[in-house]
């Protein structure tokens, strides 16, 4: 196997390892739009990072945190629906990011990679950072797992039982921000959400418990990465979109099988 393909595979697996367990919560908490908003606005973070030449991962994390805080601030208000608000933020930040990109000399060639990912150029150095992120996300998620599940079931019940709802929700949001930062140049800003929600949605009819669903989502993510990269290598299709297409095929197949069984 070629070295670059091995690295691409490892990077994809790393993303699947975190997008699986984070994705099931996205589904349960009906936050698909939220994931989109974080990843779209990350384009602005990248553009600002390039323009003022600071670390791009830091730029992405900062933009994600800014969006999360902005949303938290607006949560109390009732004059706009939260889906509307998320849509406005997602597309404004994306557009603003594209505008800022135009001020960065020679960055337009890179833009495609940020939007649709460039998994085949991942370096060993980047890989080690990605796997460090996997470890951090897993440890934090294990720590908040029970509380986050209880909050997802019912926020008030969680509050009465002494769970710090705001803190746990904030940590969960930060974990998604970390995923976005890690997955940006692997699958690209426009496709990150698909890796959060498609394997998780596929896993639902195959699972009886919450933990099981998270594990099945990881396995499905890994299969999609494997299949997508194979397709990309064989037919020279774009890597990240191929991964998403395979994930979607898995979703359609399981849905059909599930429906036929009933």
């Amino acid at each position, binding site marked *: 196997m070629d070295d670059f393909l091995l690295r691409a595979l490892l990077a994809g697996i790393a993303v699947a390892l975190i997008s699986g367990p984070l994705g099931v919560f996205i589904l349960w908490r009906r936050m698909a739009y939220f994931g989109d908003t974080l990843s779209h606005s990350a384009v602005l973070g990248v553009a600002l990072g390039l323009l003022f030449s600071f670390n791009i991962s830091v730029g992405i994390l900062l933009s994600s945190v800014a969006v999360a805080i902005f949303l938290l601030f607006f949560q109390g208000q009732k004059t706009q629906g939260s889906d509307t608000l998320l849509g406005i933020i997602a597309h404004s930040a994306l557009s603003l990011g594209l505008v800022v990109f135009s001020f960065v000399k020679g960055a337009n060639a890179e833009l495609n990679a940020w939007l649709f990912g460039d998994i085949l150029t991942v370096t060993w150095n980047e890989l080690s950072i990605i796997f460090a992120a996997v470890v951090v996300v897993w440890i934090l998620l294990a720590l908040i797992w029970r509380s986050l*599940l209880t909050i997802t079931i019912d926020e008030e019940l969680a509050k*009465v039982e*002494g769970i710090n709802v705001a803190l746990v929700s904030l940590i969960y949001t930060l974990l998604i921000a970390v995923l976005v930062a890690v997955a940006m140049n692997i699958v690209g800003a426009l496709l990150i959400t698909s890796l959060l929600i498609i394997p998780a949605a596929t896993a639902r009819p195959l699972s009886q418990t919450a933990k*099981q669903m998270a594990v099945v989502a990881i396995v499905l993510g890994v299969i999609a990465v494997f299949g997508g990269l194979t397709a990309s290598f064989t037919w020279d299709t774009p890597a990240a979109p191929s991964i998403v297409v395979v994930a979607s095929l898995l979703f359609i197949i399981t849905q059909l099988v599930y429906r036929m069984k009933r």
Partner: protein
Amino acid sequence: MQTSSRILATLKHVNLSLGRREILHDISLELSAGKVLTIIGPNGAGKSTLLRVLLGLQTVDSGEVTRLPSLRIGYVPQKIIINPLMPLTVRCFIALAGNKDINKVMLDAGIQHLENQAVQSISGGEFQRVLLARALMRQPQLLVLDEPAQGVDMMGQAALYEKIAQLKEQHGFGVLMVSHDLHVVMQKTDQVLCLNQHVCCSGLPEDVSQHPEYQRLFGDFPDSGLAVYTHHHDHQHDLHGNIVSENPTQSHDKECCKHG
């Protein structure tokens, strides 16, 4: 019974308005360990809001809310809707609440047979018992129930309140509940608080039911409702609705159900 009933929480002259509507007016009450306080009142009387104030989910405009520091509360909400996208068995749902012996808790609540069912698939009455079991998992010092008998049939209600009273004796926790089921609840409660934005009357159940304000609010209820629960049954049901004979050796004629 406990010799000293420890005070778990108190409200002093609590006032609350939401929007322009006054919800609670000058409410004072006290919750003690080993005692059952039942809040009754018409729709929109502020019963659930009062519960939320005590649970710390709702801040008040004025007055004093005090709770024992780090008071462990077992909460049985009126209803919660669990996203069907979350695969969750009854056992997992209950286990999430604490580290007590889950098998014993499920046995206590009479729901062992539901163990591996999805929480979203069980009936309303069953779910109430699952929520009760979940609250017990926390080894609560205070058990708070918001209309726990919803979706439970009449005989089931009596059994449920009996169960709560029995658990209270066993564990010595305080109980606060909101109820519509006046006559059923009267039997098993130490104190009744009749609420209609303000405290209409409160005290022992017998006293409250004689109080003119109570009679004005609930007086048009047919008295026959009370009779159902004061006559002696010739048999009892357990939580599953199975007939329980008080004398196990006595043969039981299943046709002799003489209700009402």
